Structures are given as C-alpha cells and as structure tokens.
C-alpha cells in the first residue's frame, strides 16, 4: 500500500483552506471606508519596508530581532520550498537541501521563541500565543524529516514503508499541526495572522510617509461636508468620526489585524502605568473583535486597569462605545504617541482613538468633565478658559512688542499661544522675548489677532472647532510676510507645522515653522547670544511628546543645555522613549481617574536622576510637573534657563 499522495494532498488542502481564509479576512477589512493608497507600489515596496522600517523597531530588542529573523525568514523560505519540493514534486537535490537548511534555521529560531515564552514578561499575551513556539517547532521539525528522503539522506520511500507506520503517523500528525498553525491559522485568525495582515499593512499603510525614515504625525481632517450637505437617505454613512468598526478606513482595520500582541505599547503607555482604564494593546485587540465580530473572552493579555476581561462584545455594524470599548478608555489617552513609536507593526493607535473621540464629541456631545465647557469657550472666545479675546496681549503690556498689524512684515513671527493667558507660562514668554531682543532678531507677534491653535479642540474630537480656528488663523497669517514662525508651545508648533497644511491655504508655503529651542540653538550656534555657564547643580531634560515624538526634535534642547556647560543627567525614559507628563490630548480636561497621576510618576523618574532642576520645552509640561507636590526639583523652560544665564550688554 502506498501513501505517497498523502503529504502533498495535506499540503494542498492546507493551502486551499488558507486561501479561503484569506479571502474571508480581506472581505472583513473591505467593510471599512475607502482610502487612497497605491496598491501596486505598496506591494512592491513591502519587502524593503519589512527589512528597514519594521526591523528598525524590532531591532530595539536585539534578542527578539534575531529570533524573528531566523524564524520568520526560515518560515517564508521553507513555505516556498515546501510547495516546490513536496507539492509540485520538483526533483532537485539542491532544493531539498535548501529546504533542510531553511527548516533547520526556522527550528533554531523557534527554540529561542520557546525560551522567551518560558518566563514571559507580563506585557505579552498568553493564550494561543503560548502554543505558537511549539507549533513552529512542529512545523519546522516535521518538514525537516519529511525532506530527508528527497535530499538523499534517507532512502526514497523510507518514511512510507509499512514498517514505519508509527513514524508516519506521528510525522503526519505533526505536519497537520504545523500547517494548521502556519497556513490555516494565518488567515483564519490564529497568532500567525500577524504575518499575513502585517505584510499587507506594510504595503497599504494609511501613512505611507512613515516609511524610509519619514515622520507623519498630523491627524487627518474630518470631512465636514457630510453634515453640511445632509441627505437623510444616506444618513447612516454620514457619521462624523468613527461610531462603528466599519467607519474606519479599510487599511486601519487591516492595521489592527496586524497586531502581534507583543505589548510593547502597553509597557510604554503612561495611562496604563497610572492605572487608568486604558491599555493600547487591549484596545487594538478590541478593534479586531469589532471588525471580526465576537467577544473578548479569549483575550489573554493584561486588561484595561480596573476592568474585567470578558464583557466586551462587538461587530462591524455595532457602535463601539456601546459595549466594546468604554468611553473612559478613549478619554484616558494623552495622545503621547509612545505606543505608536514602539509598535513593531506600525499600528496607529492615536488615529484610532481620536477617530472614536470625534464621534463622541461631534455626534453624541459627550466629552467628559470639563470638556464641554472648554470647547464652548474655545468656540466663543478662541481660548480654552473663556478670557476676553481683547486681553490676549495684556501679558506683554510692558514688553513693547512689534505687532504684525503695524509692521506688516518681519523675519520671525513669534507665535505666543494661549500661554499668554497663564501667569506661569508668561514667565516663559518673557524669557523668550528677552532672548530675542538680546540677539537682535527682527520679530513681531500677531497680538490679539492670534487665536488658539486648535490643538485641544482637535484632540478632544471637535474637528469642526479645530478647522474653524485653523482657517481663521491661516487667513490672518496670509496677510503678513515672514519667513519663520517660532513658538514656545510644542502643541501649537505641531498644528502649525503638521496639521494646518491640510486646510487648503498657502499662507504657510515656504515658511519654516520652528520650536523655540531649535531657533535658540541656531542663535547660540551662530554666536548671537552670549551666555554664562550654568552651575546650579544637576540638570535633567524632559522631552515633550509634541516636540520629540511628534516632530523629531531631541537634539536642539540638549545642545542648548550643553552650551551652558550642563551635563544632562538623562532619565531612563528619554528621547523617543520619553514618558508623557500627562498633559497632552486634553487629558487634564477629561481627567479620567486612575491609581496614580502621570505627572507624579514622571517626577519620580526625574528624582531618580538626582536632578535639582528639570529642564522642559513646553508650558504644558511645566504646568504638569510643577503641579507635583513639593519637595521636588525645580521646573524651568529652557528659555528661562537661558535667559537667566544671558550676559547682557551694558551700554
């Protein structure tokens, strides 16, 4: 009796099932909204993106990157060779030997996966993921043995001899297990789904600009015309923001499916660490439940702090905040992007969170706590605290600042931001003005013509208010001539630099938008400011999220501090891994309770450097860190530190 047909038939069956699963999975993603991506170009660029962009992130964990290269590389190679050698029966010893090599490579990689899983860190998911290393071993090992005859090591037909029944049965079982996980599971929702969805996500990512070292952090504008030209007949398609999973763009859905549940995002998330009900990994898994339908009973990772797993239900047509994700989870996020920065699959958590907030704010009118009041103020007075718009320049009553409406043009437009209304922030503004004057910079301010940048409104989900402010600001800007905008507020900086461009104005064409630390660094490097060295003890630097991760500026503030002779005592979480102060994304406004305060946790990290002074580059960070109870190190903006060391010319 001959069983020669058995293994090819099994392989063919597994592949056919995999294809059916893939078609089904693709149709789940296609329930999402259309998005402009070049499909062909994306597919062509995919291997390169895998090797560079994805691996650059994985590389941060050397152990995992080597393990993944061996396992993943070995698998892809083996899969191709298996089809050639065992399915199409190509009679080539070279191919068979290659298959032996690739499956051996995969086997070795799988051993390391196995080792990592022996004592897994809490951030990674368990459940089916614990089975994966064994499945990898089964797949690699069984195909290694199956290939031995083809490579001429064992006699042809050896494995199918009647005397080796037991071996055949065991081998066949392992092959079925291995292929079940690797081929069938890949497209039917097993752990290997990450390879299938992840590869396609690299190809069709919504932010193609991110690849090749680019940065793409500005939120995408909401199309408001859907309510302005309201048509009741199609009203269910005309929701603002995301109510149901199918309201996401299709490639966002694809992105959620790519998650490997590695929990790197969870380990970075300040809200999670503070015990607020947010865990970015769980959130992405809930989105997967939403797109595929079902509940979270099988989820085997850390929960949202304070919330039990097992009660979330969702489906593509069900409203997400009715039973899948609670609004508090969405409002806990500070939009710090630490999760996005850390995610090896390049998933965009912040986009998703803000999309869902947009629905809560613009459709339901349910922005928690101070949210509604702040938004009302922004709309009625162009600043979040409802101050008289005519008092915006009161802080500079004694500063004699040139105002654009008088001078019409200047080299630098100093964007003051809403810090103008806050007494603590005014100290930063004054210091910066002092430096500008000392360096003889030709600058001007907009005065009362300046409006809130729209940052808070946008992060709170009110894109209508954001777009309104942005358009009016752009109109004001278009009246004057300047070559640079410099601001002390990283949030305004981000809006002006990365988000205003989507609103169809050319007011900022050819204009360089700079953060004050970047600009001051240029001045110092050019010798325009004479500064004394600083000897006020140990100094550490806190990277503001909207300066660092959002805009890639890590160096200028450090260079400035070094130019004062300061040796920075770096915190463990610094640079692109800096931890948020807790002040972004409207989080202080929505104020979702946790077990700790994010600012307190950050101050502990400051303390562990032994610093007596923490330098920041953001008025919001200043406010958050100074809100920590004393005793604590002093908090100063870099502009304040520099102004304190300025050697003033005496005339």
């Amino acid at each position, binding site marked *: 009796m001959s069983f020669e047909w058995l293994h090819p038939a099994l392989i063919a069956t597994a592949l056919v099932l995999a294809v059916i699963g893939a078609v089904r999975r693709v149709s789940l993603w296609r329930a999402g909204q259309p998005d402009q991506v070049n499909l062909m170009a994306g597919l062509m660029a995919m291997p390169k993106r895998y090797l560079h962009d994805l691996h650059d992130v994985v590389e941060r964990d050397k152990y995992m990157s080597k393990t993944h290269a061996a396992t993943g590389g070995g698998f892809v190679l083996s899969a191709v060779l298996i089809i050639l050698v065992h399915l199409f029966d190509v009679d080539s010893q070279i191919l068979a030997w290659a298959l032996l090599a690739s499956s051996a490579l995969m086997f070795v990689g799988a051993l390391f996966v196995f080792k990592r899983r022996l004592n897994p860190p809490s951030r990674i998911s368990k459940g089916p993921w614990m089975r994966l290393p064994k499945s990898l071993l089964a797949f690699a090992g069984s195909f290694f043995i199956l290939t031995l005859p083809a490579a001429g090591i064992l006699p042809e037909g050896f494995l199918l001899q009647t005397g080796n029944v037991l071996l055949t049965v065991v081998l066949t079982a392992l092959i079925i297990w291995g292929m079940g996980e690797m081929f069938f599971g890949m497209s039917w929702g097993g752990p290997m789904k990450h390879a299938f969805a992840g590869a396609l996500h690299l190809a069709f990512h919504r932010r193609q600009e991110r690849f090749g070292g680019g940065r793409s952090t500005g939120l995408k504008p909401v199309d408001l015309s859907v*309510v*302005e030209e309201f048509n009741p007949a199609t009203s269910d398609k005309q929701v603002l923001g995301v109510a149901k999973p199918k309201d996401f763009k299709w490639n966002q859905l694809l992105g959620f499916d790519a998650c490997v549940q590695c929990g790197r995002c969870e380990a970075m998330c300040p809200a999670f660490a503070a015990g607020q009900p947010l865990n970015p990994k769980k959130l992405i898994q809930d989105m997967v439940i939403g797109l595929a339908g079902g509940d979270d009973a099988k989820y085997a990772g850390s929960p949202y702090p304070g919330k039990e797993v097992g009660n979330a239900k969702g489906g593509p047509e069900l409203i997400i905040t009715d039973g899948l994700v609670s609004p508090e989870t969405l409002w806990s996020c500070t939009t710090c992007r630490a999760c996005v920065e850390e995610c090896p699959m390049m998933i965009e958590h912040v986009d998703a969170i803000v999309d869902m907030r947009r629905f809560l704010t613009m459709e339901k*009118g349910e922005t928690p706590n101070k*949210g*509604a009041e702040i938004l009302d103020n922004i709309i*009625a*007075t*162009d600043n979040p605290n409802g*101050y008289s*718009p005519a008092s915006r320049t009161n802080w500079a009553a004694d500063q004699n600042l040139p105002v654009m409406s008088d001078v019409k043009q200047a080299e630098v437009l100093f964007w003051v931001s809403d810090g103008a209304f806050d007494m603590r922030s005014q100290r930063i503004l004054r210091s910066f003005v002092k430096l500008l004057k000392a360096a003889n910079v030709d600058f001007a301010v907009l005065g009362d013509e300046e409006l809130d940048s729209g940052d808070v409104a946008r992060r709170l989900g009110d894109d209508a208010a954001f777009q309104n402010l942005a358009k009016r600001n752009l109109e004001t800007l278009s009246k004057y001539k300047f070559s640079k905008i410099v601001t002390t507020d990283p949030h305004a900086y981000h809006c002006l630099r990365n988000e205003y461009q989507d609103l169809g104005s050319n007011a900022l064409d050819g204009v360089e938008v700079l953060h004050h630390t970047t600009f001051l660094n240029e001045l110092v490097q050019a010798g325009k400011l004479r500064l004394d060295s600083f000897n006020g003890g140990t100094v550490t630097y806190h990277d503001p999220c909207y300066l660092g991760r959002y805009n890639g500026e890590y160096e200028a503030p450090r260079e400035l501090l070094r130019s004062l002779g300061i040796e920075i005592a770096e915190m463990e979480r610094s640079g692109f891994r800096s931890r948020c102060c807790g002040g972004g994304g409207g989080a202080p406004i929505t104020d979702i309770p946790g077990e700790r305060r994010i600012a307190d946790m950050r101050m502990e990290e400051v303390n562990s450097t032994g610093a007596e002074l923490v330098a920041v580059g953001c008025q919001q960070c200043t406010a958050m860190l100074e809100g920590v109870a004393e005793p604590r190190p002093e908090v100063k903006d870099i502009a304040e530190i520099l102004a304190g060391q300025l050697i003033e010319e005496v005339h």
Partner: protein
Amino acid sequence: MPLNVVSLVSVGRHPQSGRQRRAEQDGRAVELGMNLKVVQNSQLTVLHAGASSEPVLRTYAGMGLPELKVLELAEQDDAVPALGDYLQSANADIVLTGVRAESGESSGMVPYLLAEQLGWPLVPRIADIVSIDDGVAEILLALPRGQRRAVSVPLPFVASVDNAAAEARQTAYGPGMRARIEGNKAVTEVDEVRAGWQESDAKPRPKRLKVVKAKTAADRFKAATAKPQGKAGKVMKSESAKEQAEEIFKLLLEEKVIK
C-alpha cells in the same frame, strides 16, 4: 394626550467676547424641556422668533433636537406679538423661557408680556419642575443662596428658568448641523418704541471697594451665607386669606405700585 411643552430660545452673547452663542438660561429652558420629555412623555417644541438662518440656532439643535421652529421676524420686529399669536393657537401647556435675554433689550419682560397676553400665570425663576399630575405642576422656585420654594401651579403657565436649573447639555456639531430648522410666517409688528431709541455702549463704572469687616474665616463664611436680614416686611402664615390679601394691598398702596 401628551403634554405640550414649548421652550423659547434667543441669541445669546458671550460676556467676554461679545460673540453670539447659545444663551445660558435659554439653554437651561431647553434642557428642562428635554428632561420633561423623558419623564413626562411630553412633546417638546423649541421655538425662536427671529431669522431661521441664524447660526446660533444650530447650537441649540446640537443638544439633540431633530428640529426647531422659527417665527420669521426682521430685526426691527417685536417678538412678543408673534410669540403670543403662535402660542395661543399651539395648544401649549407649559412655556419655558430664560429670565432675560443676553442680547437685544434684555429687559426680562418677554415672559411677563406673554403671560399677560395669554392670560396664564407666570412662574418666575424656576429651578425645576418636579412632577406634573392631574394638570398641576409641582415646581421649585430658585431663591437666593441656594434656597428653594415649592409651589403648585395649574397648567397652563409660563415659567422663566433660573440659572439654578440644570445646566444645558453639551451641544454636538453633527446633530446641530443636521437638524431641520423650519421658518414660519408670523405676525409682524414693528417695535415702534424701540425704533425711537438710541443705543450706545455702556461705560464701565468704577467699583466701590468692599470693606471686609469680618475678622475670622467663620465670620466671612457667615457673611457670605447668612440670609439677608430684611428690616421691613412680615411673614403671615396663620392669618386668613382675606387678612393676607389686605396686607398685601396695603403694602402695594404704600409703595405706590397701585394708586
């Protein structure tokens, strides 16, 4: 038949920026109307006398109203005759307004004039409508310093809503933009009196500094919370209705309210 509640809304004005907005008290009148709708299963009509193109109306609609009714009036028209005429025929049971408008004349007279025209009682400065049974509403009036007075008022009536009433819910952009705002022809009567007026900006007057006499925190707290000690007037509880009425009549004569 379900109760018919009408909330009147006007164009507000932000105290700092002077920009048009949803008026504080009118928002509360809508909020109260929306809550009654849930509790009493009543019908709510939100009504504005003015221009249906007014963008501020969308901020009322954003509270979750599918539609707003507008009595189309021009700038110089008087709102009261139009509103009165509409309400007369609208079968309303309860009319809710703000205490006074934030823009325009802001005299606070609209609820009074409407009540007079309709011949209904006016309930000023209410904080809440607790219940409505058998055509009688239990109402809480807002008194200074957080005090409340419960009164029963038979339907129909006009009530002005105090700042002590529940705050207006958040307004959402989407529903606001989608709401149907329906303009209706209305009785127009030019406000002749107003036409003759001249308007000018108010000048800020210097404020008299308050001398704080209290020495301790306890004193300050007392000063801030104690009931004003009225010197004149008396409380009559046990006297007969006739005696009470006579006393009121006497007072009105003394104060030259009636002659």
